[in-house]
């Protein structure tokens, strides 16, 4: 009884406080301060601190050439991957949203798989499928796809695919079919209607999907490292350099200089590119001059649509789905050998494996909670344009920066800053900060999008009925947006569990699950293929559990 009474008076106090201007401003101000001090500025200062070391790179032309080639590779692959993803993802999203088949819900869920599987496990799975003698290569004798750029391309295509599909499914569901119908009644065949009406209206979503796929490809480190072989892109270059430094092959100054050099170029070029896409994208006009009646008519009807759908599904199954799940095979084999009891008893390498799983999930949980607390006021600031339209839009852009900065570059600069400023900072805290930086935009974006969908009228109605701001939030806004918040939370959690690049960059002794998988595959820690298979398999299974939860909580999404 005492507890309940206390709770009530506490809530009442909150309600009273929430209507005071000073309190409101303090909450918003602290959210902005946290964003700048913990998330935006540390990586920038980290680079500034080590700026001097860049001279090292200019003194070693060979190293500089290697760095520039690697970074170039990163951008070429990212561009190719996001273009291919759009080409394959749009028909897939179209199929999911337009087909009347009951199986589309299943297809929708399957398309999410590569998103929730930690990329390190995904990378190993693809390596097995395309490269090892146990996979598809066995049919052709030898390895079908050797490690290197082609395998990286396949890998990045696979893990960015769900991002594109997700964005486009959302856009197509929001799209008013009336536009397309109007176009049809005016004489346009379906393909022309798509080309001249639907796609220009959906262009912002195409751009968003492109940017997200591009950013994911630029950023990914762990899985890329697994499948790269001798090939280097930006993140792999930084990773290789770190390993050489650990092995005592290069000096600290060279390592730091080259890392800062690569990070700065990656950050600056990607920011510049996104700026350009943001400015030029909306102005870019799709060519709409002539009509090619015969060709476009042929592209429009049953035959073409059927072959397009079939091709889409074939690409999805062969390139995306089966390779992603191929790791199940060795995992299953491992179940019938000594590997399983070993794993369960935690002997040998498994002790640190289970520790890393525990660390990954604990880290994910902490980051999710912190992200929610720090991101929530920010999301309200952005969604409700509390600072005025232009400042809120600017804040929106700033919040997105961590999304487009390659995570290993972010991790490197973060660790420079914190290790320099607070040398005795616990590594765990550093890890939390790094993951918070990377996942922050996801949370803020999903929450602000959810809040924007809630009509301000609803809040005002509650206010006129006598509700204090806190009550409005807890009784109107939260219930209406809880599904978006939950799915945002699960996204942040998965992203944190899956994150490799920034983790590798900031830690020296701690090991998260993806880092362990990378070490096993690369042989830094000796492990046989059954062990790797089982280790990756367990990660995948845990991810499925999360995907299942995600589906469960978001199922009633259309309720309101």
């Amino acid at each position, binding site marked *: 009884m005492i507890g309940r009474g206390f709770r009530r008076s506490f809530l009442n106090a909150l309600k009273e406080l929430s209507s005071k201007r000073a309190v409101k401003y303090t909450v918003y101000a602290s959210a902005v301060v946290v964003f700048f001090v913990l998330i935006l500025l540390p990586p920038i200062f980290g680079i500034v601190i080590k700026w001097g070391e860049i001279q090292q790179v200019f003194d070693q032309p060979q190293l500089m050439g290697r760095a520039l080639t690697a970074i170039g590779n990163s951008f070429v692959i990212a561009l190719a991957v996001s273009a291919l993803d759009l080409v394959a993802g749009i028909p897939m999203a179209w199929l999911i949203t337009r087909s009347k088949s009951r199986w589309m819900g299943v297809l929708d869920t399957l398309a999410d798989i590569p998103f929730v599987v930690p990329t390190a496990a995904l990378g190993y799975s693809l390596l097995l499928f395309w490269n090892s003698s146990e996979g598809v290569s066995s049919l052709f004798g030898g390895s079908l796809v050797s490690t290197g750029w082609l395998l990286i391309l396949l890998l990045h295509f696979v893990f960015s695919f769900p991002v594109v599909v997700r964005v486009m499914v959302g856009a197509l569901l929001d799209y*008013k079919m*009336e*536009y397309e*119908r*109007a*176009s*049809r*009644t*005016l*004489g*346009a*065949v*379906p393909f*022309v209607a798509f080309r*001249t*009406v639907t796609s*220009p*209206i959906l262009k912002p979503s195409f751009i968003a999907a492109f940017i997200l796929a591009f950013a994911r490809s630029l950023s990914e480190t762990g899985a890329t490292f697994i499948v790269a072989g001798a090939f280097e892109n930006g993140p792999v270059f930084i990773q290789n350099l770190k390993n050489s430094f650990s092995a005592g092959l290069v000096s600290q100054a060279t390592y730091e200089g080259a890392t800062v050099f690569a990070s700065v170029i990656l950050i600056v070029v990607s920011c510049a590119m996104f700026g350009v896409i943001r400015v030029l994208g909306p102005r870019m006009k799709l060519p709409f001059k*002539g*009509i090619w*009646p015969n060709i476009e008519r042929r592209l429009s*009807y049953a035959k073409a649509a059927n072959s397009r759908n079939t091709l889409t599904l074939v690409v999805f199954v062969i390139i995306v789905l089966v390779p992603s799940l191929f790791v199940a095979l060795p995992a299953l084999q491992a179940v019938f050998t000594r590997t399983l009891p070993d794993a369960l008893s935690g002997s040998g390498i498994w002790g640190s494996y289970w520790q890393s799983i525990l660390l990954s999930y604990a880290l994910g949980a902490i980051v999710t909670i912190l992200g929610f607390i720090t991101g929530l006021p920010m999301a309200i600031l952005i969604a409700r344009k509390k600072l005025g339209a232009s400042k809120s839009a600017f804040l929106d852009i700033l919040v997105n920066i961590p999304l487009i900065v390659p995570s290993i570059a972010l991790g490197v600069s973060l660790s420079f800053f914190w290790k320099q400023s607070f040398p005795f900072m616990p590594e765990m805290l550093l890890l939390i900060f790094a993951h918070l930086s990377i996942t922050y935009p996801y949370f803020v974006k999903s929450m602000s999008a959810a809040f924007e969908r809630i009509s301000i009228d609803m809040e005002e109605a509650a206010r006129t009925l006598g509700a204090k701001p806190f009550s409005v939030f807890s009784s109107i806004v939260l219930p209406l947006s809880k599904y978006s918040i939950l799915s945002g939370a699960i996204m942040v959690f998965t992203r944190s569990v899956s994150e490799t690049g920034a983790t590798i960059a900031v830690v020296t002794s701690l090991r998260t699950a993806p880092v362990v998988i990378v070490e096993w595959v690369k042989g830094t820690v000796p492990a046989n293929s059954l062990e790797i298979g089982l280790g990756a398999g367990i990660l995948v299974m845990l991810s499925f559990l999360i995907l299942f939860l995600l589906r469960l909580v978001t199922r009633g999404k259309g309720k309101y």
Partner: protein
Amino acid sequence: MPEVGVVNLTKKFGNITALENINLQIHDKEYFSLLGPSGCGKTTLLRLIAGLIEPTSGEIYIANKRVDKIPPEDREIGFVFQTFALFPHMTVWDNVLYGPKVKNFNLREAKTIGDEVLEMVKLHERLDAFPGELSGGMMQRTAVARALAAGAKTLLLDEPLGQLDAKVRNEIRYEIRKMAKDLGLTAIHVTHDQSEAMSISDRIAVMKKGKIVQVGTPKELYMNPNSLFVAHFIGESNFLEGSITNAEGEDLEMELRGGYKVHTICKHTSTSGRIILAIRPEAFTMDQGLVQKDNSLSGRVEKVTFEGTFMRYIIRLKSQDCVVVIRPSMAEAWTDVGSEVTVSFAPEKTHVFPYPQAGLMKEISV
């Protein structure tokens, strides 16, 4: 010959039957309205004719050509959407020229057409405006211009005035009719507003729960409704319960609830037993006090509403039934609340319907 014909058309959405066995012939160059309460299937019927949805069974003809198997772009129709569906990324000019362009007209021809229709809807000054910058009325005009520019001879309008405010709505409805007539189009206009349908249509089909109840000119529907539903939905009617006491040809004598004895002349309905007598509010004349007259009902004025052109009286009869009486507001003296009055009507200005099995309220409910 852009006549539109619909034969045995049925549309089901899952277990719900939206339209059942519809048959309809719309003449060349006719301005035709589909009228009914929301949910009656009128928009579904229009969308079926346009090809935006596919029928479950039945046939659709446009200009004597069977079209129910061909896609909307090949049906030679213009469609004006309730939400206008103007392409937000194109200017007024590009919206209007969209049809000619996708139909691959040559450019000069397309521009001439665009000029003509924009002239017609008086939108020449706003060529470069985007739909977001237009007022409701302008968006509406653009939507009509776009549908016309595609050159179709059949114009389908789905509640085209629903989003406009009352004043603009009244202006534009006559403009649309005039344009359709000037261009010699066959127009099918969906609306739930009976005054809109009455004022612009050559003929109207009244629909209820997926079926067509009556088809006729506005005058026919008003003067000779074939059912209680139409009598209730088109204009306004007083419904009085009673039973027939004597019938000689068209001459019916009846006793209404409350003991009023009246006689009417009823051309169409041959009926006996329990009936409903329908009388329009404006068919009554009104006298002060208790007056002995044929076909008269006496009661007390319960409510008076001044409606500008008309006075609306609600009169409580002895039977406790209420009747609504409408009188011109300027032509005669007003009657106050509480006055004793006698209202009477001419025998031929009534309609007699058999008492519906499901009850009166159920019969006239939408």
